[in-house]
Every structure is written in C-alpha cells, then in structure tokens.
C-alpha cells in the first residue's frame, strides 16, 4: 500500500513537472504577441478606411489585451526592467497619441484606439514638463509686453513661478488620475459591468490631453482678453472631449446621477486648471491706453501755433 501511495505521489510530481515545463512554452508564446501588436497597430493606423475595424477589435480583444498586459509586466517592481516596460514606445507612436489627443474623433475612445494596453509614461511626464516651462516663460513674456511702456516697470524673471507651475501641473496630472482610478475601482466593486482602466492608462489619457495647452499657452501671450478666453474655451473643448469620450463608457452603466456627476467633475477640474493658470501666470491686459492723450496735446499745440 505504501509503495502504491509513493508511486501515486511520484506520478503527481511528474504531472506537476510537466505542467511547469509546459508553462515556459506558454509564456514564451504569449510574450511574442505583444511584440506583434505594435506592428499591426502601425499598419492598421495607416489605413484610414479601417477605423470601424479598429474600434471593434479594440472591444473584442480587450480581455486578451488585459491578459497580455498582465504577462508583459512580469518583472518585479524593484528592477529597472519593470520601469522600462513603461517606455516601450517609438517616436511615431508618441506622435500618433499626441495627434489623437488634439484631433479627437467623435465616438472613438482614446485609450482603446491609441494606447491598446501599452500605456507609456514618456508622454505624460515630458508633456507636463514642457507645459510647466511653457506657461512660466509665456507668462513672463506676456507680462513684459503688457507693462513695456510704463516708466516704473522693472523687468523681473519671476523664477519662483516655475516651481509653483511645476507643483500644480504635476499634482493635477498624477493625483487626479489616482483619485479617479480609486473612484472607478470602488464603483467597479459595486456594479459588475463597468469597463475599468488601469491607473497607468488614466495617467496616459490625462497626460496626453494636456498637450493642447502648450500651443494655447504660447498664444496667450497676445494681450487681448477676448482672444485669451476664446483660446481657452477652444482648448478646453478639445481636451475635455477626449476625456469625456474616454470616461463616459466607463461610467455609463452605473447609476445615472453618479455617471453624470463623475464626468462633470472631470470637466470642472480640467477647466479649473486652465482658468487658474491663466489668472495666476498671465496679468490682465490693461484696458486704458494713456498714449492717445499725448498726440491730442501735440495736436492742440500745433493748432495754436498755426493760428
């Protein structure tokens, strides 16, 4: 009896060893697929007529991409290779994602269309860095041009505003996605059908949606109130629509009021960032121009002289 039991356990170990031997094959096969996906994505994005296929494929293989994403990032988090998986993007991919955030296609989801389980941290980080310095430099330039003619004005570089801009923008780009991700996870535990994004995908969407503010900040140098507000509304519409189209499918299965409140909060915070930056970094353009008084004075003296 004992020999039978020993044989049985040995057979079990053999089976387990076979399974373990089979698993490396399984992981190697599945690891090859994420390498193929960027190439297919490249060819798909180049064919403009196939967009409905892209959208269908985006929703069909969402489960597969979730699995593959889980297997791709298998390095432990204290190794360098783990973080290298977040920078696995080529130049054309970053440019495509930026283009997708600036020209939102109605009905297409930014995450499904462009990110496709390959969220990167390059875009969010460097777009935020560029935005910080663009806002600080443009604000400084705009204040310089507004106060240029005044005799009491002495130019200062206002370097302290750079650190304030950096804190604000990085806090917005990282803490708001964290809060939103936590909120979506909490709702996901209550309502089973919600599509949920990973934290990095939310950071990616927020990071790329801030790109439109870079040219807007440069154009805010123009010292006209109407121009500035038109630019702000325009950029808010573009980036807000990217955010809404990303997060509406995630919350629409939830309670109606909560879904609308979530999307409204996302848009409100986005608008608050834009309005706050405009108010703090860019001085209000002066409405009165003291210059016309001087030519009138000269005109009157000329008239009296000619008389």
């Amino acid at each position, binding site marked *: 009896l004992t020999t039978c039991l020993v044989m049985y356990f040995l057979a079990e170990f053999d089976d387990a060893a076979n399974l373990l031997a089979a698993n490396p094959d399984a992981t190697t096969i599945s690891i090859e697929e994420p390498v193929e996906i960027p190439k297919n994505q490249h060819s798909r994005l180049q064919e403009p007529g196939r967009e409905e296929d892209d959208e269908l494929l985006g929703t069909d293989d969402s489960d597969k991409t979730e699995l593959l994403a889980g297997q791709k990032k298998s390095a432990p988090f204290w190794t360098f290779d783990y973080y290298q998986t977040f920078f696995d993007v080529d130049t054309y991919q970053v440019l495509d994602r930026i283009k997708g955030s600036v020209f939102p296609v109605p009905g297409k989801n930014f995450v499904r269309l462009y990110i496709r389980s390959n969220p990167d941290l390059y875009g969010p980080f460097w777009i935020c860095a560029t935005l910080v310095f663009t806002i600080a430099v443009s604000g400084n330039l705009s204040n310089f041009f507004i106060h240029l003619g005044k005799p009491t004005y002495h130019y200062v*570089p206002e370097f302290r505003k750079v650190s304030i801009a950096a804190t604000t923008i990085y806090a917005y780009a990282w803490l708001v996605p964290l809060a939103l991700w936590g909120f979506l996870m909490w709702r996901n535990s209550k309502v089973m059908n919600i599509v949920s994004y990973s934290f990095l995908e939310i950071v990616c969407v927020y990071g790329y949606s801030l790109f439109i503010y870079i040219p807007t900040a440069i154009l805010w140098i123009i010292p006209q109130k109407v121009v500035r507000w038109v630019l702000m509304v325009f950029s808010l519409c573009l980036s807000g629509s990217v955010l809404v189209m990303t997060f509406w499918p995630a919350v629409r299965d939830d309670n109606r009021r909560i879904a609308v409140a979530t999307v409204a909060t996302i848009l409100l915070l986005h608008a608050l960032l834009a309005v706050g930056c405009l108010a703090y970094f860019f001085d209000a353009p002066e409405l009165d121009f003291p210059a016309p008084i001087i030519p009138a004075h000269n005109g009157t003296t000329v008239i009296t002289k000619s008389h």
Partner: protein
Amino acid sequence: FPGLADVSIPQDIPVEGEITVPVGSHSPDEDYSTLDEPVKDTIMRDLKAVGKKFVHVMYPRKSSALLRDWDLWGPLVLCVSLALMLQGGSADSKDDGGPQFAEVFVLIWFGAVVITLNSKLLGGTISFFQSLCVLGYCVMPLTVAMLVCRLVLLASTGTVSFIIRLIVVGAMFGWSTLASTAFLADSQPPNRKALVVYPIFLFYFVISWMILTFTPQ
C-alpha cells in the same frame, strides 16, 4: 582526509620564495602605482583630461574619448560658475527675482539625471555617468554665453544689448544641443532618437532662458 594521512612535513625545511607576483598584462592605466607620484602630477593629469574634454565640446566630433573616460569635475565647475554668475540679479524681493543658486544647481543636476534616466529607459546603451558627463560638459557654451552677457550688460542695458545677448545665447544654445546630440545620439535605438533628443533640447532651452532673462540690479 584519508589521502593526506601519510604526508608529513619535517619541521626543519625552511619555506622560502618570492611573494611579489609578476605583472603579466601591461594594461595602460594599471601598470604603475599612482600613490607615489607627486601631487602636482596627479592634479595635472586630471586637469589635462578635463581640458581635453572641453576641447572635444568646442569641436564636436564623434569621438569615444569623451565617453570612455568620464569625469564630473568639468560639469561641477561649469555648474557652479554658471550659478554664481546668475546671482546678483534683480533680487530686491526674494520672491520675484531670478533663480537662486540652489535652484540653478538643482535644475542642472536634476535635469541631467532625469534626461539620463529617460534615455536609459528608452533603451539607450550609454552608461549613467557617461551621459551625465556629456550633458554637463555641453553646458560649457552656455557658460561662455553667460560671461559674454554679463560683459555686455556692464556696457549698456538697452535694446541693442538685448539683441546682442539674444544672438549670442541663441547661437550657444544651438551649439550645446548639437554637441550633446552628436555624442549621445548614437547610443539610442534608431526609431526613438527624437524621443531622446527632445528632452535635451528642453533642458538647454530652460538654461538659455535663465541666461537671457538675467537682469542686473
């Protein structure tokens, strides 16, 4: 140990021999000890290495000497001198003046570290300190531009001096970016070169902005 049981060493055989090990391979850096040389030689050797790297930055060619023998003395000297020259600006209220010494220092070093991490994460093959070395040495044209700006500002502060400063800073910014790109671009994967060059461009742009907006009190 059964095999050694019958080995016995008689106690009156003296053990003698040479303790020094002859050096087999004469590698160029290790076949003489640098402990015994006079201090002047040590300092001159390091100074010559730093000076050779400055010449490499002035005439950027793809040479591996800058990359192989990295050192951080040059970047430290450049960073400290640039930060010192950026002091004495309009700082009547501490809030709205130019950058403080610590701010310039942190910006340059932290910026260089972040760019190096960025290029390594994107798959670059350059080592961490080699990249820091190149980025630090390529700040040299901008330090020269700062010196020229301060001299021009001593002479006049009007529009003409601003245009001169703008041209000088712009030219040196282009030179810095081209020099560092010439050294660093080869170690990057070919379809990610723009992703690596852009942060370098941003880094030198910020430093150029700080130099250009320097206004004396």
